[in-house]
C-alpha cells in the first residue's frame, strides 16, 4: 500500500503563501483530481508531492517516511511525474523518451539492461506507441506526444503517478483516452494517481476523489458540490446528475 501524505505544508515565495497549511492523505487505488482557479497552488502542490520542491513549512511523507529523506533515485522508483507537454529542443525519438523513464533504475554506469528494454517495450505497447517508436517526438501529433510522456512514466514502474494538466491541448477523444488510462492504473492496478485538471467535467468523470484548492488552501476534499464550486469559481455553475453522470454546467452567459 502506497500512502503519500502532505502534513501541514506551506510554500512561500517572497511574501506570498502559494500553499498555506495543506494536509492531505492519498492512498493507493485512488484516482485523485486536483482542481482550482489559476494560481491556486495546484502545480506547487504536485511538485511538493513528487519531492521536486521542498515545502517551506511542513513535510511530505511517503509510506510514513519523510520524502526529503529519500535519495532522489529511490523516490523516483516509487513516484513518477508526467510533465506538461513540453517543448523538445532536440530530436529524441519516442522510444528514447520512454526509455528516460528507466533513469532511476539504471546503475552507476548508466547502461540499460535487456530487462529495461523489455519494460520500455511493454510501456510502448500499453500506450499504443509501438508503431511510432522510431518517430521523432517533435514530429508526432500532440496526442501522441502526450502518450509518450505517459509511457515514460509507465516505464518508471511507479506506485504513484502524478500528472500535471495531462489534457491541455488534447481533443476530447484524447482527453478521454489519457484519463481513462490513468483511472485504470488506479482502479485496476492499484496505483495512486493524482491529476491536476482544469476541466471540471473531466475531473468528475475521472476522479474517485476531488480536491479543490483555492488560494493555497484545501477548500473541499471528496465530492464536488455545487455550493463549493460556486464559492470557489464564482456563481454561474450548476451540478446536474442523472445517476451515472455528474455534469458541471454553465448558466447561460
Amino acid at each position: 500500500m502506497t500512502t503519500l501524505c502532505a502534513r501541514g505544508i506551506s510554500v512561500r515565495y517572497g511574501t506570498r503563501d502559494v500553499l498555506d497549511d495543506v494536509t492531505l492523505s492519498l492512498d493507493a487505488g485512488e484516482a485523485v483530481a486536483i482542481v482550482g482557479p489559476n494560481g491556486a497552488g495546484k502545480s506547487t502542490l504536485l511538485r511538493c508531492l513528487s519531492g521536486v520542491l521542498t515545502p517551506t513549512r511542513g513535510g511530505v511523507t511517503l509510506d510514513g517516511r519523510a520524502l526529503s529523506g529519500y535519495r532522489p533515485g529511490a523516490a523516483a522508483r516509487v513516484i513518477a511525474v508526467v510533465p506538461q507537454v513540453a517543448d523538445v529542443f532536440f530530436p529524441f525519438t519516442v522510444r528514447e523518451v520512454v526509455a528516460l523513464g528507466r533513469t532511476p533504475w539504471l546503475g552507476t554506469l548508466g547502461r540499460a539492461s535487456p530487462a529495461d528494454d523489455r519494460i520500455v517495450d511493454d510501456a510502448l505497447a500499453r500506450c499504443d506507441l509501438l508503431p511510432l517508436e522510431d518517430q521523432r517526438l517533435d514530429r508526432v501529433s500532440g496526442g501522441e506526444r502526450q502518450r509518450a510522456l505517459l509511457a515514460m512514466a509507465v516505464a518508471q514502474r511507479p506506485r504513484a503517478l502524478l500528472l500535471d494538466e495531462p489534457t491541455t491541448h488534447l481533443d476530447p477523444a484524447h482527453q478521454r483516452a489519457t484519463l481513462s488510462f490513468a483511472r485504470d492504473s488506479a482502479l485496476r492496478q492499484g496505483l495512486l494517481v493524482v491529476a491536476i485538471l482544469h476541466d471540471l467535467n473531466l475531473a468528475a468523470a475521472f476522479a474517485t476523489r476531488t480536491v479543490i484548492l483555492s488560494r493555497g488552501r484545501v477548500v473541499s476534499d471528496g465530492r464536488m458540490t455545487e455550493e463549493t464550486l460556486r464559492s470557489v469559481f464564482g456563481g454561474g455553475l450548476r451540478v446536474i446528475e442523472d445517476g451515472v453522470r455528474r455534469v458541471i454546467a454553465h448558466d447561460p452567459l
Partner: protein
Amino acid sequence: MRYATVLLSLVGALLLALLAGLLVGAVAIAPGDVLSALSGASGSDSTIVRDLRLPRVIGAALVGGALAVAGVLLQSLLRNPLADPYVTGSSAGASLAAVLVIATGAVSPLALPLAAFAGALAASLLVWQLARAGGRTTVLSVLLAGVVLSSFCGALVTFLLVWSDRLALRLRAVLGWLLGGISVLDLGELVVAGSVIAIGVALALMLAPRVDAFAFGEDSAAALGVDPERATVAILLTCSLLTGAAVALSGLIGFVGLLVPHAARFAAGASAARLIPLCFLAGATVLVLADLGARTVVAPSELPVGVITGLIGGPFFLSLLMRSRGIARA
C-alpha cells in the same frame, strides 16, 4: 544510416584526415618519406614529420574531439542548441587563467592545463548562475552571460599582455595561441592533455543518461531521480576538464563545439550516449582538417586555426540563431 555505419565511417574519415595532415605542409615531403619517417627513419624530413607534424595533428584531433563533446554536454544540459564552451565563456575563462599562469612564470607542465581547467569551471559555474538568476535558464540569458564574460576575460587578458614584461617578451607566441593556434611544444604536453581528455570523455559517457534526463527541464530531471544541482555540477566539471585541456593546447577555438553536435544530431538523434562518441570523432576530424587549412591557405605563413573555424562557424551560428528565434522567446 545505422549508427554503427556512421561511427565506422567517421573512424575512416578521421584516419584519412590524420594522414592528410601528415602528408601536407609548408615543406613538400613525398608520401613514401612520410611513411618511412613514421617507421623510424632519420633525416630532416623525418624530424619534420615526427616532431612537428605528428604532434600537431594529434593535438588538433584531441582538441577538436574534446570541444565537440563539451559542446554536446552543454547544449543538452542547458537545452540550448546554441551553447558551446566558446559561446558560454568557459573557453575565455580558461584562457584568462592560463595567461595568468604564463605571466607568473610557472613552469610545471601541469600548471597550464590545471589553471585552464579551474578557469573554465569558474566561468561555466558563473554563467550558469547568472543565466538562471531570473528563475529559469533561457537560451538568450545564457548567450548574454557568455558574451559578457568573454569580453571581460578578453579585456583582462589584453591588460595582462600589455602589463606583464614576461608576456610582452612572448607577445607573438601568446597572441597566436590565444587566437587558436595549435602549438604542441613537447610530447609531455600531449600526454597530459590526452589523459585529461580521455578521463573527460569517459565521465561524459557515464553521465550520458543524466544528461538526457534534462530533456524536459530540471523538474522533470528531478522527477526521474536525477538531483539537478549535483548533476549540473558534475556535467559542468566534465565540460571544464575537456575545455581546459583543449584551451591549454590550443587557445580559443570557436564553433567546433557548436557545429559538430548539431550535425551529429542529424545522423544519430539526440541521445547523449550515442552522440558523444560520434562527436568526438567528428570534432577531431573537423579540427585536423581546419588545421590543415590553417597551415596551407597562406603558406608559407600560417593562420591561427581559430580564424578558419571562426570564418566557417560564425555564419553558421547566425543562421542557427535566426532559425531559433522561437526558442529564444520561450
